[in-house]
Each structure stands twice: as structure tokens, then as C-alpha cells.
């Protein structure tokens, strides 16, 4: 059984990890890098709690053997949290009472981050499609949808101000 060194750029920081064959990305993040914001809710891709952004795309980190993403750029919930504060999506979830048990939040946030990066003005339908694979058992989804839309609007506003 040959372990391998895998190099990742995680939240902007270069990381080298030694992985046993088939070690999944979620395991590298949580167990080796101790970035425990990314959650494990299943191991089959159906809950969405482990969603992270790899090379600009939201993916399921539980379905990715680390060897296959050598040299990839990975963003986790830790990477979207500004020092000393909250990002707009995080702030909208808090203010909109869109979090209850909190376990789905990281995955939701990463999927929403990827969505807004690509589509700064998503419709409710776009948001619902984007998070359709992320299970939330507490909120009934509507507060989350609202929060993502509010955050997107705020981010557009901020961009406009920056542009002016």
C-alpha cells in the first residue's frame, strides 16, 4: 500500500499531505488539516454537507480521492470567512434566521459561493436549483433561499460602489 504526497492550495495556503490510497478530500480537510468546518453527513454524495469549491466548482469532497485533485485549489467555509467578521452570505444566514442546527450551513455556503461567483444575480429558481442537492432538515429551505438572494443583492451593491 503506497501512500502519496498530495499538494493542495487550501484557502490560499499551500498544503502537502501524505495520503493512503483512496483517502477522500473531506478526510484530508477534516482529519489531516483539521479544517472541521466541512461536515460529513453521508459518504455517498447525497447530503451535500461536505460541499467545497475545487478549482472554482462546488463539488462533494466525500466523493473525491485526494490523489485525483493533486495541485488543485480548494476553498472551504474557513476560506470565505473574513478576519474578524462575516462574509455577506454568512451575515445573511445569521440575520435571516436561516440557521438552526447548523450542520448543513458550510455545504450550503460553499454551493452558494460558487453560484454567486458565476451568477451574481440569481433568481429564486436559480438558488433552489443550486442548493437542490444540499439537505436541510430544520429550516424548510425558504429562509436559506432568502438569505442567499439577500447576500447576492448586497454583494452586487458593494461591487457597484467599488466600481464607482
Amino acid at each position, binding site marked *: 500500500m503506497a501512500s502519496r504526497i498530495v499538494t493542495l492550495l487550501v484557502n490560499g495556503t499551500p498544503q502537502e499531505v501524505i495520503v*493512503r490510497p*483512496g483517502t477522500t478530500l473531506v478526510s484530508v480537510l*477534516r*482529519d489531516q488539516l*483539521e*479544517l*472541521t*468546518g*466541512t*461536515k*460529513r*453527513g*453521508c*459518504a*455517498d454524495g*447525497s*447530503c451535500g*454537507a461536505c460541499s467545497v469549491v475545487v478549482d472554482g466548482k462546488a463539488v462533494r469532497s466525500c466523493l473525491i480521492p485526494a490523489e485525483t485533485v493533486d495541485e488543485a485549489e480548494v476553498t*472551504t*467555509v*474557513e476560506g470565505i*470567512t473574513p478576519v474578524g467578521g*462575516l462574509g455577506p*452570505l*454568512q451575515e445573511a*444566514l*445569521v*440575520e435571516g*434566521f436561516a*440557521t*438552526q*442546527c*447548523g*450542520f*448543513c*450551513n*458550510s455545504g450550503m*455556503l460553499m454551493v452558494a459561493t460558487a453560484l454567486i461567483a458565476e451568477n451574481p444575480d440569481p*433568481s*429564486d*429558481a436559480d438558488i*433552489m436549483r443550486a442548493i437542490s442537492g444540499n*439537505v*436541510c*432538515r*430544520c429550516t424548510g429551505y*425558504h429562509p436559506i*433561499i*432568502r438569505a442567499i*438572494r439577500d447576500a447576492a443583492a448586497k454583494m452586487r451593491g458593494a461591487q457597484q460602489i467599488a466600481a464607482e
Partner: protein
Amino acid sequence: MDDHIPSETSGETLDRSYFSDENQHDFKVVGQPSPRLDARGHVTGTTRYFEDNHFRGTLHIKVCRSKRHHAKLTRIDPAPAMNVPGVVRVLTAKDVPANWYTVLRLINVGPNDEPVLAEDSVRYLGEPICAVVAESEAAAIEGASRVQVDYEDLPVVLDVEEALKPDAQIVNPVHGKNYFEYEGHPFRRIRFGDVEKGFAEADHIFEHRYQSRPIEQAPVETTGCIVKPEGDGRLTIYSDTQACFFTLDNTALILDVPTAKLRVVGGTVGGGFGGKVDVMVEPLACIAAMLTNRPVKFVYDRAEEMQVSSPRAAERIYIKDGVMKDGRIVARKMTFYIDSGAYSRHTPYGVTKASAHVPGPYSIPNVWADCHCVYTNRTPSSAMRGFGVTIGDFALESQMDRIAKTLGLDPLIFRLKNAYRDGDTKAHRKKVEGAALIEVIQRAAELVGHDLPEEYRKMSSVKREAK
């Protein structure tokens, strides 16, 4: 799909105009939408759930489970599992100091009717037989698949009414019959008034059957724990239990150790919904930790959470109602068959909770209920949000609708006619206080523009109108 715009059309209102003489206040913090204390932690991924505790050298448990609904175990051979690289130990029933338990023994509900690990028989598909402890999850999975188990099939009981027939195969030998016994009775009883007299007087009889199926709590975080042996000989149990001391005390009984040896750390859980009140993972993880002196993690995978952890019980409910022409219900008889699966867990308690809910929020002079807690060869059921009531409400309120539709009565007026009010006596003899059924119906009618005649708009839970 594009038609749904939740944020535009959903609305949330607090209306203090009802009971306004009772609900005025000058609180400063209470009644305010204070931000959740846990929200920032949740959205930054810094909230610490049990699995976020990381200890070097942690071992992993996976369980070898029954592939049969009901069988004698003629052979359990863990040796092939031990040959898997990374497997450290295989736990069998012999390793569990007090293998037979039932969680509600803490409140003197017995008998102990379930083994932590199966001994000579299995009584449901997925019942734990051995626990494989390994250096990695993959090795534990591989090991669990290699344990050799030989079965001799026994007749299977899956239907609750079949289970209660005199010649039915016994599911659980501890009970010796396929039902939980309530102080000498084969079911929990409610007897109030004379239900047969009520039926004889009634203008109409309505008799219907309702059936639900097991439902999974489905928290996004599955059931699990990490147990860490400490230098002082104690064990710290990082757990997502819904009840820390309940888990601690039950675990100590199974381990046969003083409670002072255990410490449970939890309190922050990724959803429960009743699915984390059984004590399923902590005892085995503790035993493994004690035998290896290593931290041990035992977390259900999603399939275990779906099919092996206790669901909301399936219920079969018969309701017979006697109703007068004017819509007054004069007698209600309910028979519940609540499917406990192979063992008790919390279901005997839920059955009593179901009985206390009969006949719903209505004042009915004659009420009868027989609430059976039935053993079958399926995954034991246990608590879930609304335990004992949710399915009863489906049956009761479906029944109410059928009566109203058949008699041509407005569905809200029919409920108002029968609604309980302060001072009424419920079927379980408790005096009604703080009733507000009438008011929520009145406010709902207003909310949806459903016209109610004035006499029904004027009704009050606080007192009955003079006749």
C-alpha cells in the same frame, strides 16, 4: 418552479389581540427576536460538533449486522475479520459486561429486552452481531464484511395485527408475547363515560382505519460518538446524544462501571428529531476504548441511520365515532396498533403519550382507547418529533374532515362545535386549562378569508356561552 417566490409571499405575524387581557407585558429581552447565540459559529464552520474533536490514533468501529429478519445464530466466527490488515479487535456479546438492557429502565420501565450485541438470535434485519474495531474506517468495513455468521431462519412476524394472533411466532422471548404489558393489561387503556351507550344514541356512526409507515428522523449529522480514555482511568464520551445524563447513566449500566468513570461532552448537535435518544453507539465505543486504551470513534453511516437506527413507529389506527345530526360527537373509540419493532426502546412510553392525546382537542363525553405496543421483526422504533401524537393527529383530523364532509358541515364549524374549553374534563381526567383551539381556528378562518357565522366568531375557550 419559477412561480415560487417564498420571500415575497411568506409572512410571519404575532397577533396579541386574542387573549389581550392575559398577554400584555413589559419584558425587555423576552419577546424580542434576539439573534441566535450559535448562528455565527454555525455559518463560519467553527461550531464544534462531536466529530470535530480530533485525537491522534483514533480507532474506528463498524458493525457486522444481521442479514435476516429473524433467525437463530448457529455460528459467529470473527476470525476472518481479524485477518484484515488494520483490524485490532472484534467485539462480541461476551465483551459487553451487561449485554441486556432497555433504555427506559432509568425510569423503571422494564424488562431489559434487548442485547447490545446479539447472542443466540437476531430479531430484525440489521441487528448488530459483532463490532469490528480497526485502525481505519476502510479496514473496519472490510472486517465487518468478513465476519462469518451462519443463520437458521425462524418464522417472521411483520404485521401488527398478525403479531397479536394467539398462534403468532413470538418475536421477543423476554416478553413472551408480542405486546408490551401495561400493569396487567395487554394495552394502555383510556375509559371515560360509556362509549357503547354513546354509539347507541348517535345518529351516525363513522368507522375508519388509518395507517402510517416508519419515518426516519434524518438529521444531517448521523448518530455517533468518539470515546477517549483519559489518564485518570475515566472515559470522555464526545457524543451527539439528545440527553447527556441519560446516555451517561445507561452506558454506565451496560459497562457495569460507576457513573463517576464516565463524562459526556455534547450539547451541540446537528439535528436530532428524536433520533438521538436511544443509546446505540456509546456503549460499544466505550468497551472498545477500554479494551484498547485508544480513542474510538463509532459513527453511523447514512444507510445505518436510515435502516438501523430507530424510526418513528408505523401506526395502524382505527377510529369509531358516534355523531349527532347537529354535529356533536358523543362517542369516540380508538384502537392503536403501534409497531415497536423487535424491542421496546422508547415505544411503550410513546404509546402512553398517544393514549393521553385521545380524543384530540375535543370534548367528547364517552371515550375509549386501546393502545397496543406491538413487537414485530423490524427495526425497533423509538422517539421522533411529535412522538405518539403526529400520526394520531393525521387519523383524528382526517376523521374529523370525513364526518364534516359527510354531514355537510363546514369543517371549521364542526371543529368549533366540539372544541374543548377551559374547565372541560379530558378523557384522561385532566381539567382543561389554557385552551385556545377555538381562537386558533377563528384566527385561521380570518387569515384565509373563510367566513364564520357570528356565533362562531364570538365563541371563546375561556368560557361557554349561556344556553
